[in-house]
């Protein structure tokens, strides 16, 4: 005969029950109790479900690029020990948005629609800001502020990073040729300051503030960035707001000027990419 057990006693032992760490007698009493007490069996099932979920590797996110940065201090330590031993020059950097790496010299587009997708895109800057990369944010002032806010939410000290010029905000306030010159100057400054890589996050949103040039001005800038980025140890990621941008800008700017496309599925080669010269030819012919 099984002696009854109260709910309170069951709750006290429920964790040990899951561990299998109970006498046979107590276990039998609890099992009898679960059969007739819906509340306690709900607690048992829920707790077991939680334990199973959190034990799965997919349960908790590790920050993108964590594995790359984990050995940062050790490398500095070993670097000191080896007194000036040559350090390998990186050819790719952690992407930040997904677990992938991206080759230096890449120009990728990322289409976003929701605030969450926007914040996911901004994660591109995280590994750089936690490491030593120079990070440049380029867009309308209001969008730049949203980027800064998303970085702050990630626990990054935006003010300090800006003061140290590890994080640079560039405003979309001039026509394409001036902007391109400013961007190039910032890239050079980053390299001279010893940054191992430059991360450039451009945002394109329509309807918040007027663009300083025409749509074609933006398209020309995008087409020329692909070549410019290859001259520096840099990666450019352009975030396109699909809610507000006109179809023509999405097609020609988003799809035809970026060799790579990033989505939640990962980084992919873009089959719609058209090399700069042919793209600009076609653009000017239409004009």
């Amino acid at each position: 005969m099984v002696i009854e057990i109260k709910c309170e006693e069951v709750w006290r032992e429920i964790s040990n029950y899951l561990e299998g760490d109970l006498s046979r007698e107590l276990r039998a009493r609890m099992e009898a109790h679960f059969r007739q007490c819906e509340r306690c069996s709900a607690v048992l099932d829920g707790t077991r479900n939680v334990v199973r979920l959190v034990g799965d590797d997919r349960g908790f996110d590790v920050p993108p690029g964590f594995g790359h940065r984990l050995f940062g201090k050790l490398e500095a330590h070993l670097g000191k020990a080896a007194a000036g031993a040559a350090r390998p020059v990186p050819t790719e950097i952690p992407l930040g948005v997904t677990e992938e790496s991206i080759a230096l010299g890449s120009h990728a587009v990322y289409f976003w629609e929701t605030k969450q997708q926007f914040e996911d895109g901004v994660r591109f800057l995280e590994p750089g800001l936690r490491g030593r990369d120079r990070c440049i944010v380029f867009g309308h002032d209001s969008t730049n502020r949203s980027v800064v806010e998303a970085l702050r939410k990630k626990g990054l000290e935006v003010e300090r990073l800006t003061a140290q010029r590890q994080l640079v905000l560039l405003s979309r306030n001039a026509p394409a040729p001036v902007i391109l010159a400013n961007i190039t100057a910032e890239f050079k400054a980053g390299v001279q300051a010893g940054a191992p890589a430059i991360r450039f996050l451009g945002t394109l949103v329509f309807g918040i503030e007027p663009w300083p040039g025409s749509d074609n001005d933006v398209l020309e800038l995008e087409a020329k960035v692909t070549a410019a980025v290859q001259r520096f140890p840099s990666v450019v990621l352009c975030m396109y707001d699909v809610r507000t941008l006109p179809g023509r800008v999405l097609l020609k700017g988003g799809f035809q000027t970026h060799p790579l496309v990033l989505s939640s599925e990962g980084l992919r080669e873009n089959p719609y990419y058209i090399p700069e010269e042919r793209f600009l030819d076609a653009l000017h012919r239409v004009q």
Partner: protein
Amino acid sequence: MSAAHNAALGANLPRRLQRTRVGEDSVAAAKPQVESSEAGLIRRVLDGEAEAFYDLVRPYERAIFSAAHAILENETDAEDAAQEAVVKAYTNLSRFRGDAKFSTWLVQITINEARMKLRKDRRKLYDSLDDRHEEQEGDYVPRDFADWREIPSEALQKKELRTALARALASLAPKYREVFVLRDVQQLSIAESAKILSITEASVKTRLLRARLQMRDALAPGIDGSWSTGREEYQKVRPW
């Protein structure tokens, strides 16, 4: 881990997880090979081959991060402590005796590093948080008795669920969270968790009980009620 545990907890686990539950037969069978290769890597590092250290540590990146994050509750600080721990583990590797598993030793260093950082950076905050929960040693009474529909492991692909888990974990007091992370997230044994935290196994069990019940309560409302047994029934226990 006993057969009873498997029946209670592990019977429906995916194969991958069953393999990783500490102390199960399949793990025991795989152990010698894993440990000998770890021992080999350790020897190579001690012989001056620093590169081998990366291979030694890489399988435990996730464990290092979750341990540091459990204490520091902030990604930036957790990364900082994790990097410090890696340096400490490297410089002290010759002191690793092999009486514990390398992973246990590494996580222990990480926990110590995180605690040191916490004391240094925000001592008052930690003390006050811990004090506040110190009085909760009495029995924990579940708050929610809703019978929710089982959340399948596949649902972990949804960011909302991962966010809900992270939020629930963050809601635990530090001492419960530490135990929960070691035992249930990293799946170390009760004995290993006790050793790492320098507490008794009885304390691990007591804290684990509260942590598990609190985690369940924190997750019971679901993210939108979708993992309850149905909206109507659900609203009886959760009026909002």
